[in-house]
């Protein structure tokens, strides 16, 4: 009985520790969003509490004087498009590579994965030339074109692991049962690999929202910015940081992703583990 109790206390303590640790950034963003600058900058004040009445001024600045909503829309649009392109190309490619018998499938897979390891900080120089030639500079289409070059190799590699773990007999059975090869792929392989495909979706979308180098170098006009670049450019003026608005922007931008992520949490965990371990 005693042991059970002490177990429980340790359990709750560990849980509490991580809850505080992980929720703290969100608490900090929320409280900073509604604080007056006077309150925020006074080192005598307890930073975790309000000392002056909460204000809406930071939110007004964010929505009134920047193109924040437009940036959010750009990011969401690029995110969705890149996710679609990535899925359309990486799922068939990964399936083909996984089912390609002999050594070539494996080697090609590794080769494709290696391209993922070339850092964007090296690639943005030649790529900006490509963007200029195509006449896509200063538009979000430059990012729609470039991001898949990062997301597809990784996704192919991840999905290959998934597809390989699906027994070939399942497809054979589906074909004998009345599907075409493509039908078996669509109705058997894709639904069984849903965890992996969701992992690809979240990976791709997260990459699009947080990518900085390409978004900064390819696009200059304020209205075409991505949220990750627009916020630091327009809310940090010289050495003046609009902390309240910065935190508000971070909070609003991160909430939807956090929400979706939690919704599919179990699926993602399955996704990361099944893909990683054979069998």
């Amino acid at each position: 009985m005693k042991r059970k109790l002490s177990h429980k206390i340790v359990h709750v303590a560990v849980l509490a520790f991580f809850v505080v640790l992980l929720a703290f950034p969100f608490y900090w963003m929320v409280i900073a969003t509604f604080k007056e600058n006077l309150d925020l900058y006074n080192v005598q004040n307890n930073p975790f509490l309000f000392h002056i009445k909460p204000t809406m001024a930071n939110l007004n600045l964010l929505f009134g004087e920047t193109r924040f909503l437009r940036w959010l829309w750009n990011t969401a649009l690029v995110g969705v498009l890149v996710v679609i392109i990535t899925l359309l190309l990486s799922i068939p490619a990964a399936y083909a590579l996984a089912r390609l018998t002999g050594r070539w499938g494996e080697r090609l897979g590794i080769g494709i994965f290696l391209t993922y390891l070339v850092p964007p900080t090296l690639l943005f120089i030649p790529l900006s030339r490509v963007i200029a030639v195509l006449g896509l500079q200063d538009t979000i289409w430059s990012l729609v074109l470039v991001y898949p070059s990062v997301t597809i190799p990784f996704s192919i590699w991840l999905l290959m692991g998934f597809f390989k773990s699906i027994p070939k007999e399942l497809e054979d059975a589906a074909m004998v049962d009345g599907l075409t090869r493509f039908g078996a792929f669509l109705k058997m392989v894709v639904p069984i690999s849903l965890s992996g495909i969701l992992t690809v979706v979240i990976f791709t979308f997260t990459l699009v929202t947080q990518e900085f180098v390409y978004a900064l170098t390819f696009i200059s006009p304020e209205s075409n910015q991505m949220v990750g670049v627009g916020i630091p450019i327009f809310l940090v003026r010289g050495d003046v940081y609009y902390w309240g608005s910065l935190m508000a922007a971070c909070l609003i931008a991160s909430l939807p992703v956090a929400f979706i992520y939690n919704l599919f949490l179990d699926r993602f965990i399955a996704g990361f583990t099944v893909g990683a371990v054979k069998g």
Partner: protein
Amino acid sequence: MAVVQTRNVTKVFKEGELGAVNNVNLETREGEFLVFLGPSGSGKTTLLRMIAGLETPTSGEILIGGKVVNDLTPRERRIAMVFQSYALYPHLTVYKNIAFPLKAQNVPKNLHKEKVEWASSLLGIGALLQRKPRELSGGERQRVALARAIVREPSVFLLDEPLSNLDAKLRLSAREELERFHRRVGTTTIYVTHDQVEAMAMGDRIMVLNKGVVRQIGTPKEVYDDPADTFVATFLGSPPMNLVENDGVIVGFRPEHFRLAEDIREVDKLTFKFRVENVEYLGAEFILSGLLMGGKADGKKVIARLLLGHSYEAGTTYDFAISARQLKFFDRTTEKKVPAKALTWQ
């Protein structure tokens, strides 16, 4: 129902290499239970997969119901196949697994429920319809796989070692269930196995394959009592047939026909001195292994299988004999069956 025929079917996986299946000609009978029997790598599964349409023959023709189906996809052949791993769809419930072929072949939706219920009651899995495959035992999975196979009433059943994933006890009951099932539906069935006991017990006829070549097709009695060559002779039967060479022919006799000379009443018999080296007591029978002594067969290792009655001791030499009509003769070079010959043994 339909008859499956193959005409000179050959499958070569890598050019220049020996074929996995070579020049196979076979014709099932209507409603027959035909077993492909052979060791692993004998090409039996490849042949089955070609009949299913999952592999393309390198040459030759495959006919189902009298029609050449070489260019038809698996779905167009109206066959059902049960795989070694059962290949149940893991993301679907048992009900949806069974209904899957109906859906895939655009059977009107209002018939699904009725047909699934018919198939599942036939196999006694009506209570499992809402479960997922991972929640089923091995035997239940096999039944679901069979239900999924019969639900669309195929013209031919193909079964690829469906019992090999079950433990020994379950295998026996599943085997009986399969036999009963076949008697009830009466569909032409081709069954692949490497287990000679399964083949003998279930097959109307057995086709013995080795290295992609058909060695013999016949009823269990024919392939056991009258093997076409030494491979069939030694592959069927446990312990296998004894083979002793003499005067350019190989003489074979089954261990159960090699008995104490005094127990064989026939006049026409072949007697040997048999020195027992090892005695295995198996409850209902003895397995004796030892050496033939004297004459041309001196030192040849043979095995005898005897019912209880006498007791035998290792190290002792007994007078053993085989009735002459139980002797089989094979050519030494081709290893094929040849007519009986009179041989001198001394």
